[in-house]
């Protein structure tokens, strides 16, 4: 249980033109834990995460090589439908981007694609996931309102509910608290700690303290390379490389 690997990245390279964004990435991400990808901005953290659910397909100028195994399926070279792969991962981006529709429809969006159209079942599922994201009590009387009428913290939780609704087993979160106020950020962090029993969570951040608070496993990246990875305790108490030490001291940012 302790060592079960969910995602395994092997010699992943990614470049745009002559510019190398990711250089020979090898990491393994444990199942049902919070893995934090840490590093200063512009080090390729977000790009690494986008390649995990193949959003890199959107940018034809990006050249990707290497392998990413999720439950032993090589998702970069699979014959299966990309949308099926993406559905297994919920995505939270830096700023919440609610879809241009009502609160209810935002959560139902993924469910409807999956073909579940039974009205009653749909209602139940929407309620369930809004509750999971601790948003239900705040929005239950105005499910028909446009999602953009929510506060930014609420919007981020709506995006979480929306992501959970497609029944993923992985949550990808790209600096999900960077646009939020401290209290909303705390709520999101708390949510992650609750959810990690059932989900493999990957969190990209450049906030050291956030990483220290919630990480089980840490991947430290610098200039497109993985410098160090390991269980959080070891990483913070006993860093191996000079760059990591410097980063933990705060001299690189």
């Amino acid at each position, binding site marked *: 249980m302790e060592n079960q690997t969910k995602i395994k990245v092997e010699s992943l390279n990614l470049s745009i033109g002559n510019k190398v964004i990711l250089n020979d990435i090898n990491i393994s991400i444990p199942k049902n834990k919070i893995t934090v990808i840490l590093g200063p901005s512009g080090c390729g953290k977000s790009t690494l995460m*986008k390649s995990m*659910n193949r*959003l890199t397909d*959107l940018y*034809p100028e990006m050249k990707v090589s290497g392998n990413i195994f999720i439950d032993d399926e090589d998702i970069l070279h699979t014959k299966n439908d990309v*949308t*099926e792969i*993406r*559905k297994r*991962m*919920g*995505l939270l*981006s*830096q*700023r919440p*981007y609610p*879809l*241009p*529709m009502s609160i209810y429809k935002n959560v139902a*969006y*993924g469910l409807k*694609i*999956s073909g579940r159209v039974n009205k009653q079942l749909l209602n139940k599922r929407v309620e369930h996931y809004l509750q999971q994201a601790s948003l239900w009590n705040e929005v239950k009387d105005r499910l028909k309102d446009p999602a*953009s009428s929510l506060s930014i913290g609420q919007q981020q939780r709506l*995006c979480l509910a*929306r*992501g959970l*609704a*497609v029944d993923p087993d992985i949550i*990808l979160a790209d600096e999900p608290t960077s646009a939020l106020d401290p209290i909303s950020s705390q709520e999101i962090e708390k949510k992650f700690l609750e959810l990690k029993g059932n989900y493999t969570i990957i969190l990209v951040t450049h906030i050291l303290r956030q990483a220290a608070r919630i990480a089980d496993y840490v991947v430290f990246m610098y200039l497109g390379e993985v410098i160090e990875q390991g269980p959080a305790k070891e990483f913070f108490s006993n860093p191996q490389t000079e760059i990591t030490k410097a980063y933990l001291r705060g001299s690189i940012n």
Partner: protein
Amino acid sequence: MNWNRIRDNISPTRLQINKFNEVWMLVWTLFLVVVPLFIVSGLLWKSSLLLENHTLKEIIFSSEWKPMSGKFGFLPFIMSSLWVTLLSLLIAAPICLFSAIHLTQYANRYVLRFMQPVIDILAGIPSVIYGVWGIIAVVPFVAEKIAPMFGVQTTGYNILSASIVLAVMVIPFILNILIDIINTIPKELTEASLSLGAGKWYTIKHVILRKALPGIISAMGLGLSRSFGETIAVLMVVGNVAAIPSGIFQPGYPLPALIANNYGEMMSIPQYDSALMFSALLLMIIVLFFNIGSRFLIMSYEKRFK
């Protein structure tokens, strides 16, 4: 000591130049604000003679156009303008929308590199050239190919020909706005939808088009106002018969054509002169109405992304 000299000798003139520049530039900028007011009030003043002798209702809803006996019913011209512009939008709108989605979502950069100059050149071709093309190509095509399909005999100088020419003229205009609108939609929204398991097409249908809807409507509004004022090209192919058109194979006589055909020759009859200025005013009010409405819609739409 040295510093003081610099300050004393150079600074005052530099500051004076600066002040001087500021003043005359402000005056020129104010001139810009005055121009539209000037035009509107000028047109209003010139059309007052017509408005004194006829009620507005009579002018707009009567179809009797006999300038020599003092009867000025604008309905045929207004209806012709409506027919031509609405039909041209009906032709141009789907083409623009589909092409805009294609160019923003599916086309690779080679296609873009090819299409950008195509759109620019289409936008730059003068009205009169479109008119010539209309006479050479569209009019015979309508007369010999399209009309017989419906069992109609026509010279080809009719509402349909004018609408086709006009549609081609507004395509680059609408298309450019649509491309801008769709490109302002954040890419993260597409990413969010895709990561929920939606396909590309599903995302376009349910997220992108929905988000762009106000922008699409205003682009169409701007296109409408552009084609409403188009003069020479339409005038050359529309037939110019002052009667309310009863179908797309009938000739028409839009407002701009009325002004262009008759202005300069009616100075002897003050009421006629006034009536033509009234049609210019009418034209301007309608165009400004669509313009302001569409632009407000776009502005409120852009605000939501901030």
